[in-house]
């Protein structure tokens, strides 16, 4: 059953417009936003200086000296409403990351709880995370920090009412069918199931923020000892590998 999408073109400051497909984190709207963002990045409208894909929306910032919101709306409207009227399938990812992570135990203290909530055991939970076709849905909150999804419907687990007081950088946490991998140590209402040594943001690295919206993500389980070795890699990618897909 497909939810009906909107294709609202809304003001977002004097130099911005937001194209929004839904108010709620509906999977179809997420795909629509990714499709629109990729199309716009391939063919940016004149005068647009920045294209930032959100979860269910795309923000465009423009130079008011070069274009205006009416012209942009005329350019974006047909494209957005065509996508909303006939939501396309998830676009094929252009790149795939394989990211090692330690699941369960002290590296994923809430794996058992999450598995129970999803109605499976810990081993099945690891298999689901590592076997699902996951994508970076959007980057946000902190530099380079990915929202990854979507996990199967059984993983529609609410955020906790009590905050997890501290998860480390690289923590892999889950809620609402999504995974977040933290850029920095943080408090969170999401449950930690694993730990990676992937640093989402390093200003001194050639590519400070390596993940991009739309990238495919595959987690691969490793032992704690192996992760410790991988964490020593100078690129801060914790043993992650990147494949460019055709």
């Amino acid at each position, binding site marked *: 059953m497909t939810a009906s999408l909107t294709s*609202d073109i*809304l*003001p*977002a*400051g*004097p*130099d*911005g417009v*937001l194209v*929004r497909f*839904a*108010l*709620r*984190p*509906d999977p179809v*709207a997420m795909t629509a936003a990714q499709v629109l963002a990729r199309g716009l990045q391939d063919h940016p409208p004149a005068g647009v*200086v*920045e*294209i*930032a*894909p*959100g*979860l*269910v*929306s795309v*923000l465009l*910032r423009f130079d*008011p*000296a070069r274009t*205006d*919101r009416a012209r942009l709306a005329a350019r974006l409207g047909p494209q957005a409403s065509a996508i909303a009227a006939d939501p396309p399938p998830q676009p094929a990812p252009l790149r795939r990351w394989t990211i090692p992570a330690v699941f369960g135990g002290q590296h994923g203290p809430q794996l058992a709880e999450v598995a129970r909530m999803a109605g499976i055991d810990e081993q099945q939970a690891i298999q689901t995370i590592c076997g699902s076709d996951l994508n970076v849905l*959007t*980057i*946000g*909150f*902190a*530099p*380079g*920090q990915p929202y990854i999804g979507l996990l199967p419907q059984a993983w529609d687990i609410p955020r906790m009412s009590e905050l997890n007081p501290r998860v480390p950088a690289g923590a892999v946490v889950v809620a609402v069918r999504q995974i977040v991998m933290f*850029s*920095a140590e943080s408090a969170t209402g999401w449950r930690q199931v694993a730990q990676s040594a992937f640093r989402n*943001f390093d*200003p001194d690295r050639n590519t*400070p*923020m390596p993940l*991009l*919206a739309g990238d495919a993500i595959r987690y691969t389980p490793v032992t704690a000892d192996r992760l410790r070795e991988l964490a020593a890699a100078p690129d801060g990618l914790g043993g992650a590998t990147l494949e460019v897909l055709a």
Partner: protein
Amino acid sequence: MTTLRIDRADGILTVQDMGREGYLGQGLSRGGAMDRLALIEAAALLDLPAPLAGIEMAGAGGLFSVTAPTRVALTGAAMLATLDDAPLRWQASHLILPGQKLRIGAVQSGVYGYLTPAGGIDTPPMLGSRAAHLSAGLGAFLTAGDTLPCAPDPDPDAPPRVIEVAGRFNGGTLRVADGPQTGLFDDDVLQAFYDTPFTRAPRGNRQGIQLDAKPRFTSDHAAGLASDMIGPGDLQMTGDGLPYVLMAECQTMGGYPRIGQIIPADLPRMAQAAPGAMLRFQRLTQDQADALWRSDADLLHEAAARCHNLIRDPSTIADLLSYQLVGGVTAGRELEECRCRSI
């Protein structure tokens, strides 16, 4: 090369410029000066083609010295400033010589003062900007003993100047445009919001500022809303129904509904509202808001027209003698030039 040394840090000091653009999609907000206009006014005072990096000082300044003669601009919230114990005018540029002590004390009204050397602070850019973005882990607070490289003053002989600044340091009315989520609020909530006087709450920093009021402003759509792109000036209604204004160093994405966005022209007034300041909001149409947009280049042009040379009576300059004793570098030249140009 000049070095600007922080001999003592009394306020919260960071290097700030106009921020870094182009990283919203990667989760990094623009950051940069809380009061961008203050850096533009510094550039106007120093006759620069574009704003440069300076020191943003929250609450108070500190003690500063330089290793080569350089002009500095003092802009933003006025702070008590002295050069070797002689008072220095704020909203002005002044020549500082090696060996002199520039003292910048507590803020008199407002929050953020700016000390900008004429060559600009020349620390290595991080992702295209020198601005500290502490929530992202870029840069650090400045502390006593820090030395900052500065490019040479392109024109140290230029006379000191002052800039006329309309007050923006005591709260007041902030103009707001509708944003992508304004429609999630009922008309009576919107009406009440624009009728309500607010107080700037004690809680606030470079990421955002909390406001206080008696009424609460909530949206029936808040629960289950997808996180969406947010930016400086956004009036976010947190769970308790009070506005939290997103500022320079905000996150790029947030899940609370936003009732509107303070227009960029009025964001310096928001930044400079000290705890307890009274604020009201005025709703603009989109056309009105768009018509008030100015590029940084336009703002600099407007600011330059508000500058004029500082003309001082020699009898009010307490340290005139010391000026003349320092290697003859200025020797009253500053006064002569002022007179020449003022005729």
